[in-house]
């Protein structure tokens, strides 16, 4: 099935053969031949953004909400460098992206040509792999391999850099099947099944555990819907309590009986205490990130640890574990469940004392906040948003900061792939374009970007894309007029010197929405919140919702810098002053 065609035709053909329906991009000199081919077909829909970074995050949102690779098409030079942030973001959060960049013609490479940059050099550390295509006859094979590498093993972003002369040149196209047969990188063999002996050892430890905890992460979501189903089965079978990282929310339902809430720096008291005091930790598709572990030398000191991960380099990187299982989460969980079922079931009351302990921690009510009748508390806003959207087909994205943590704490996620957030890189400006990508993939669904007033301005220009492509995203801004998380850290660690964390000249978000051609809604009092949210939901256009919240509220609970899981600051009992005092009294030598 090899055919002769130009490089530009090959790009479009390869996208179609890979089942791609949407791509996000921005044209420019070095990709014009590909844009010309795009123009002459109607199988691949191109969503024009306003800034290449927006295209990258939109593709991330698309990928995260569908489980398929997101595709980006940008030009050389600034087009490529503007993609560096989303590529790095996707690398940190293991999101499959295929980014096709134009490049100056082959004979000009290295000449400092107009809009030239060393794209493969610049993106080498922030991609899973990248290619510069110098021969049109390699192009199709490389494009198909790019999709394979992006989506398999631990997913990640890839870049295919295509010089303009290669786009014009004519060569032989090969389809995905033939490309697989002639694949060059035969050393790339992502693991699937875990080592059966390690799985047996893991199951043996699980049988003896009296204070177990499941610690799950984004790897469960990446492994696919089957993995989330198996995880629920494992919880039902073992009766273990379960907590999750920011990236893993939704793999186990927040309404589930065994759910402890998110763990880590802003996780619940019960989740972090269970991690600290457990005798067996089963880490599944999570990577012991520093926001999760706190002080590593005081991390869960008395537990045996099992770690399931498809990436061998995640194992023993931050925390030494006892039983490493390198494999795909769904495959490993299936084997674990089968092995657990072989023997007689554990006594149901074996974990009763552990659950009693957990109930005592839960009773501390670590997510409590002071309700107010006069101002909207940000936590309350998320609670109301959840209550009014949970029975709908809803997807949530976020920016980065306090609002992101409140969304994670107070919006109960029931299913995987419904929660898109920048976890590893912490990219402010992620949420609005990500929502664009999610909405493109799910045109009938309700897609909400829970935003902060500072973050949202970083990619606000994509409102214009939303209008153009009739993507009715909802941007729900918890507006406190501060970079809230920056301010919180300045209060805790920098003597309350609020250096440049107050935004003096915010735009009028309602007028801004209208200027873009969208709808602006403002809520200032708790009493008007529900009606305003309902009005937002019912609007079939892009909406910016300016939710004016308590300006100085901080995000608790919190593991302060240099502290362990059992040294959390709790809300109410640890208000800002107490937090300050504690951080100065005890934490200083460790921060």
């Amino acid at each position, binding site marked *: 099935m090899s055919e002769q065609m130009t490089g530009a035709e090959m790009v479009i053909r390869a996208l179609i053969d890979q089942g791609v329906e949407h791509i996000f991009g921005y044209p420019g000199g070095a990709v014009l031949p590909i844009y010309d081919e795009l123009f002459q077909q109607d199988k691949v829909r191109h969503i024009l953004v306003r800034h290449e970074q927006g295209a990258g995050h939109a593709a991330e949102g698309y990928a995260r909400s569908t489980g398929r690779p997101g595709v980006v098409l940008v030009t050389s030079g600034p087009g490529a460098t503007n993609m560096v942030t989303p590529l790095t973001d996707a690398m940190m959060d293991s999101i499959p992206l295929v980014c096709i960049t134009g490049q100056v013609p082959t004979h000009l490479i290295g000449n400092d040509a107009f809009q030239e940059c060393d794209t493969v050099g610049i993106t080498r550390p922030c991609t899973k792999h990248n290619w510069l295509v110098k021969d049109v006859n390699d192009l199709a094979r490389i494009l198909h391999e790019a999709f394979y590498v992006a989506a398999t093993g631990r997913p990640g972003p890839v870049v295919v850099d295509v010089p303009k002369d290669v786009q014009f040149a004519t060569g032989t196209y090969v389809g995905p099947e033939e490309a697989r047969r002639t694949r060059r990188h035969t*050393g790339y063999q992502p693991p699937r099944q875990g080592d059966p002996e390690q799985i047996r050892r893991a199951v043996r430890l699980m049988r003896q555990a009296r204070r177990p905890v499941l610690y799950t992460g984004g790897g469960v979501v990446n492994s696919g819907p089957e993995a989330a189903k198996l995880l629920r089965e494992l919880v039902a079978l073992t009766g273990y309590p379960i907590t999750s990282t920011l990236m893993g929310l939704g793999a186990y339902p927040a309404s589930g009986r065994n759910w402890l809430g998110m763990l880590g720096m802003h996780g619940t008291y019960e989740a972090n205490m269970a991690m600290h005091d457990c005798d067996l930790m089963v880490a599944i598709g999570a990577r012991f990130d520093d926001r999760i572990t706190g002080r590593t030398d005081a991390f869960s000191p008395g537990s045996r640890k099992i770690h399931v991960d498809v990436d061998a380099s995640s194992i023993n990187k931050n925390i030494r574990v006892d039983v490493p299982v390198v494999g795909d989460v769904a495959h490993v969980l299936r084997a674990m469940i089968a092995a657990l079922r072989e023997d007689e079931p554990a006594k149901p009351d074996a974990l009763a004392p552990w659950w009693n302990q957990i109930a005592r921690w839960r009773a501390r009510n670590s997510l409590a906040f002071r309700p107010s009748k006069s101002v909207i508390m940000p936590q309350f806003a998320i609670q109301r948003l959840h209550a009014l959207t949970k029975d709908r087909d809803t997807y949530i994205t976020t920016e980065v900061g306090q609002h992101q943590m409140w969304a994670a704490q107070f919006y109960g996620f029931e299913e995987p792939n419904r929660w898109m957030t920048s976890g590893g890189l912490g990219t402010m400006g992620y949420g609005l374009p990500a929502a664009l990508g999610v909405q493109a993939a799910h045109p009938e669904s309700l897609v909400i970007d829970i935003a902060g007033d500072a973050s949202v301005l970083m990619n606000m220009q994509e409102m214009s894309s939303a209008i153009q492509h009739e993507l009715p995203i909802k941007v729900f801004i918890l507006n406190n007029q501060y970079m809230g998380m920056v301010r919180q850290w300045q209060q805790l660690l920098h003597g309350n010197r609020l250096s440049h964390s107050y935004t003096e000249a915010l735009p009028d978000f309602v007028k801004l929405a209208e200027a873009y051609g969208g709808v602006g809604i403002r809520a200032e009092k708790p009493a008007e919140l529900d009606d305003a949210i309902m009005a937002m939901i019912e609007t079939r256009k892009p909406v910016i919702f300016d939710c004016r919240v308590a300006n100085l509220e901080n995000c608790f609970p919190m593991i302060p*810098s240099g502290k362990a899981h059992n040294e959390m600051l709790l809300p109410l009992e640890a208000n800002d002053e107490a937090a300050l005092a504690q951080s100065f009294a005890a934490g*200083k030598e460790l921060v």
Partner: protein
Amino acid sequence: MNDTMTAKPAPTPPASAYFIEERRDPSETHTLAVLVDNEPGVLARVIGLFSGRGYNIESLTVSETEHAKHLSRITIVTTGTPPVLEQIRNQLDRLVPVHRVTDLTMVARGRGQEKPLERELALIKVRGSGEHRIEALRLATAFKAEVVDATTEHFVFQLTGPSSEIEQFVAILQPLGLVEVCRTGVAAMNRGPDPM
């Protein structure tokens, strides 16, 4: 709150959003053999990984070793704590063009040997006349170095051996008119009949 500020203790390490811990595990030197697809940029990927993640490279040698399969073998001598060395192996293995990573030092130890076979080649230029020249040649004979180029004013010696031997030879030649040294870096494999 400002009162708390003025009462704060004497200067301490800077406040940080990260958990800063000092690690003082003992470092070890290991030799790794990495089999990679010989393609543009592959060496940059390997070197970039080392610099990006803060690993050390003491020596690096690379050449295509299997022409039909376009495979190159990279030999890296690196220093790190045992957990860091494990990370280096795993991180290298994660690169798409990498076929195989073998810690030759670990393999040697597993077989009860101290080290794998490690050899380096050096070209050493010495300039001078009279006693120094004669002494340099005498030393070269003692070290079994070969004379690969000479005039009445200079010698170029070629010496193959363990790095330590080359170090020693170069150090001794220093006062005898040493003007230039070029070394290949370490080539290494394990002893015994089994391949990597």
